């Protein structure tokens, strides 16, 4: 997922700080808001265990400190424990980003032994039926059980709930569920419209009123819960008027490796047409980060057009998201149209109007139907 900036008070001094490994695009779920590419079947030639280890070592040498194991569903890789152990030994803070499907008590114990520090568990809803609609698979009970196992083993945990029209009215129940499980962090992340979520945008877009209600409910819960649980509420940029500081800037601190070894500034960048991202099978990671054309294209602010180039906020939001600029305006060098100063901002406003004029019905959601692997839930 395109991150709305990360929490840190250091800069990478030109080096990557965050390494995200998308170990596989395969997944036992079919989420209608999935951020994986829509042409998944073209990128299934996954790196081997040895190739992943080389990536982990090379990025560490370059200065990366945080590592995320993601996907698809990373637990489908049987070498996950081995890769976590490698990363832990090298000094990374290890994060697993999982749906929980494919995890077992035994695997969690082995991941703990391997040195896994933290788990981000994706959830769809506090209601089993809604979760089924959004994930395309009946998985709610399994997820709740896994969440409890994760806490029983003492892992710190973020419960990540992508928020859309289908579950925004459940925010108080979602907060209760997270508090009951005992998670440290709850991330209510309004769905960002890339890839599968963009396909389903008309169905997923919440109303401004629903957002305001949810925000008030979050504020109230924060008062009630105190410091027992931290709730992040990620505002949808379509409504915000300000663009997100996407990835802290292109090629700034984030490094994503796709399942086939293609190296990306963020996991969505693959959707940018006309860009040829190099892979670790053909090039040295250090060269890709520092020298490759694709990583330098939108680095810094020389590439910026107006209104970004002279904008007083360009060092705060870096012109927003390049992928969103491309998807909605046809040019990645344009200002992110989520910005109210963008001459293309009307595109975002029209998308909201169109979505809200659509009769929203869960039966019209298009499930992510490629890369799905049946797994016993």
């Amino acid at each position, binding site marked *: 997922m395109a991150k709305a900036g*990360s*929490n*840190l*008070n*250091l800069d990478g*001094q030109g*080096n990557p*700080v965050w390494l995200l490994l998308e170990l596989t695009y395969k997944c036992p779920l079919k989420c209608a808001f999935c951020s994986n590419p829509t042409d998944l079947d073209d990128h299934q030639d996954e790196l081997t265990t040895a190739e992943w280890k080389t990536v982990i070592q090379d990025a560490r040498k*370059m*200065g990366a*400190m*945080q590592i995320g194991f993601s996907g698809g569903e990373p637990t489908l890789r049987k070498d996950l424990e081995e890769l976590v152990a490698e990363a832990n030994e090298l*000094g990374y*803070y290890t*994060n697993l980003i999982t749906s929980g499907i494919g995890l077992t008590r035994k695997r969690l114990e082995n991941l703990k032994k391997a040195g896994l*520090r*933290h788990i*981000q568990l994706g959830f769809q809803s506090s209601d089993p039926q809604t979760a089924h609609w959004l994930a395309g698979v009946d998985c709610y009970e399994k997820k709740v059980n896994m969440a409890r196992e994760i806490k029983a083993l*003492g892992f*710190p945990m*973020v419960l990540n709930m992508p928020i859309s029209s289908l579950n925004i009215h459940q925010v108080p129940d979602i907060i209760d569920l997270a508090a009951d499980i005992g998670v*440290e*962090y709850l991330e209510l992340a309004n769905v960002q419209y890339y890839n599968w979520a963009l396909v389903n945008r008309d169905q997923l877009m919440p109303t401004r009123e629903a957002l305001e209600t949810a925000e008030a409910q979050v504020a109230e819960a924060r008062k009630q819960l105190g*410091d027992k649980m931290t709730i992040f509420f990620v505002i949808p940029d379509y409504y915000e008027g300000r663009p997100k500081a996407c990835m802290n800037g292109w090629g700034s601190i984030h490094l994503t490796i796709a399942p086939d070894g293609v190296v990306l500034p963020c996991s969505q960048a693959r959707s940018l047409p006309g860009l040829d991202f190099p892979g670790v099978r053909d090039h040295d990671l250090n060269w890709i980060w520092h020298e490759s054309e694709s990583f330098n294209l939108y680095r810094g602010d020389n590439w910026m057009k107006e209104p970004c180039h002279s904008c007083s906020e360009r060092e705060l939001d870096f012109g927003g998201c390049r992928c969103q600029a491309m998807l909605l305006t046809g040019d990645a060098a344009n200002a992110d149209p989520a910005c109210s100063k963008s001459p293309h901002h009307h595109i975002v406003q029209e998308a909201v109007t169109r979505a809200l004029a659509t009769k929203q019905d869960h039966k019209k959601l298009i499930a992510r139907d490629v890369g799905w692997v049946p797994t016993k839930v």
Partner: protein
Amino acid sequence: MADSNNHNSRSRFRIAPVFMFRWEESQQAYVLMYPEGIVKLNTTAGEILTRCNGTNTVDDIVHQLSELFSEQPEFIEPRVHQFLEVCHGKGWIQPQS
């Protein structure tokens, strides 16, 4: 979380389990890492936190720092207490029970 003002010179602290604290060569600094975040610490903060190992008392830390920085313990003490309160408030450290 306990009241952050209830520690005294005999209290012992350790890094909270969510956090990973270590020297980072590429930054030439101590860093504190947690889910989705990294804090780079200045020299003094790093030297205090590296001593929050569950064994040193706050008093031990004050004396070790006064030697390290060649300052009087009376100068160091309130600063150490203040920093530990901030750290405790942020959830970085926990009292050793």
